[in-house]
């Protein structure tokens, strides 16, 4: 059962890419065939999840910090359940948008669907296929345009600082200040370090953090100088990565980028508030605005 769900999620990701490739290559027959396969895989996933839920103990809803981990993980690699944990499949009763909101609220920075799903699985006990997350942004925009500000929050885009266009692959929360929802050239790294700190904080709040959470922190630590145990010692398993070490290392690097990043984000946010209507501030500008930043075009 565990293999089925996990394998289906990987297959769905691959099929999504295959559909895109076929469409961009101008091959409609192939694209149709791939779309049909994708639908079948998504349906199979739903069925598998329903079957798993039917077997599970009372469904977990809301922030759950207990041990059980949904067997179908979308984080890197397979995660075999350690002896002390039951790999009990469970599902969330919350709609997808609320689950995404939970995960983003923990991270407090714009994030990609894959990270959002991993965070939700690590700290809220259930996960979801990344394919559903990518269509969520479209649905949220439609909902906003139909009835602006009707909902307390929207899952929205992060905007690139230069053209205020939606930054591909990133989701944010509409109630965040504009400065947090624009992406300058240093912002991807800054947000990564900030996310590491938030994950470290969240782990420290749990008496017995689940393996998936510790693995997530380990993955962050692997890319932050000074966050993982040094070379020469045994390879950093999840047990050897310490939240406060990760936090201090991330803070140290953040101090190098923070000022420049804040300046860029503030300037971009001011521009967005000046130039864009409400819907564009949340979901990005589709046109190419003329800004001071574009410089002399066509100098060739």
């Amino acid at each position: 059962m565990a293999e089925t769900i996990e394998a289906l999620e990987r297959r769905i990701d691959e099929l999504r890419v295959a559909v895109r490739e076929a469409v961009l290559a101008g091959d409609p027959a192939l694209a149709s065939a791939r779309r049909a396969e994708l639908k079948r895989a998504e349906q199979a996933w739903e069925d598998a999840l329903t079957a798993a839920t039917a077997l599970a103990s009372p469904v977990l809803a809301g922030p759950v910090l207990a041990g059980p981990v949904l067997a179908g993980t979308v984080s890197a690699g397979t995660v075999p359940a350690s002896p002390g944990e039951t790999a009990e499949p469970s599902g969330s009763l919350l709609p997808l948008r609320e689950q995404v909101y939970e995960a983003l609220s923990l991270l407090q920075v714009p994030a990609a669907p894959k990270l959002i799903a991993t965070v939700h699985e690590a700290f809220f006990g259930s996960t979801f296929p990344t394919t559903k997350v990518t269509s969520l942004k479209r649905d949220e925009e439609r909902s906003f345009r139909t009835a602006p500000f009707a909902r307390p929050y929207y899952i929205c885009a992060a905007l690139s600082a230069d053209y205020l266009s939606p930054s591909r692959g990133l989701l944010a929360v509409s109630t965040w200040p504009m400065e947090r929802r624009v992406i300058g050239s240093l912002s991807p790294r800054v947000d990564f370090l900030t996310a590491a700190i938030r994950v470290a904080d969240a782990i420290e709040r749990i008496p017995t953090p689940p393996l998936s959470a510790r693995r997530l922190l380990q993955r962050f630590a692997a890319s932050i100088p000074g966050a993982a145990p040094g070379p020469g010692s045994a390879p950093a398993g999840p047990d050897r990565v310490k939240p406060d070490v990760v936090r201090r290392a991330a803070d140290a690097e953040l101090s190098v980028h923070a000022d420049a990043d804040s300046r860029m984000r503030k300037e971009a946010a001011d521009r967005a508030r000046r130039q864009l209507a409400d819907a564009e501030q949340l979901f990005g500008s589709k046109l190419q605005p003329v800004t001071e930043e574009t410089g002399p075009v066509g100098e060739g």
Partner: protein
Amino acid sequence: MNSDQLPGPVEARLDRLRGRALPVNHNARTISALAANPGCPRRALMDAAGVDKQKIAAHIGYPAPFGQSRFAITRGNAFEARVKENGAAQLLTLLRDRLDLDLAEVGYTDFNDVGGNPSRELRHVRTRQGLIGPHYAPRTLFDHPLLRLRVGGRHAYLEPDLIALRLDGTFHVIEIKSFPVIDGQADPAKVAAAAIQSAVYVRALRDLIADAGGDPGRVSHETILIAPRDFASQPVATSLDVRKQLGVLDRQLVRMTKIEALLEPYPETLTFDLDPDDDGTPRRPREELAAAIAVVPADYAPECLVTCELCFACRAEAAGSTGALGKSVREDLGGIEYNAQVLALARGQLPSAEQAEIAVQLLRAAQLREQLLGEAVP
């Protein structure tokens, strides 16, 4: 913006040649292959016009034997995505180690489109601004910048995976591939291909900087190859020194014929259009397309089998010709074109004046063969 593009008439003729379809981009592989066989007019014209050789070969009944499988493409994309995700976390870790990047060198800009607009001209302008313009955000990594290279008098757009710009002004080309590097060793043919491809990007980037009045030496001949370690997804970075490839490429680019000269012998109405219907299925009669293609001669050699999608068609056409056996074979046979002629001379047929010299050698070879095998030339 396109002041360097060719005058209208040539562009129009190439459009006509290609037909309705959108032009297929050159990439570094096709340019390096093109430069390797500059003597083939058919290939040179089709690549200049951006013709989809894969589709044409399939329609005339000779589908190409290669091209990446869907799974290889998916696997490659997935690996690249993993390397670049989370603010290029893995990529930065690799480059901090391999290139000694400073802690501050983390800037990341995406050139895959310009505010959602995928136009190549726009992307190229923005790439130029980003790489050499004075007023630009803190920069280190450029994702899919769009470069241009002059090929046969025309501009081809090229798209390296990444370019790194150091604080000291040095540029490094970075390519991400999905073939595995096992114990520090990878498939030599694939590494060689990656090296040539990187050299093409280095050349294009050097030209861009030189055109802007800068020092092309700022582009390092050391390029980076990022590939998975073993068969797991962990990426590993290797340095490639592409000076040799650059030398070969430069020599070949200089030798390539200009496109106007190539187009000259052919009627203005010549076209390789497929006349696709709404589903994209070609409607042009197979024989008509084959006849159009035959108007432009090819220069088939066995090397074509790994570099050009039309190889089977041209090989069938060249069947019985000495050149189809290999580039040096025709030279060795004194320039005689057809196998049948060679065999006839070997059997003792009277040679023409130009053939006299090679006929002597062929008769001698036939004698030796008969002594060894005990039978005459069939």
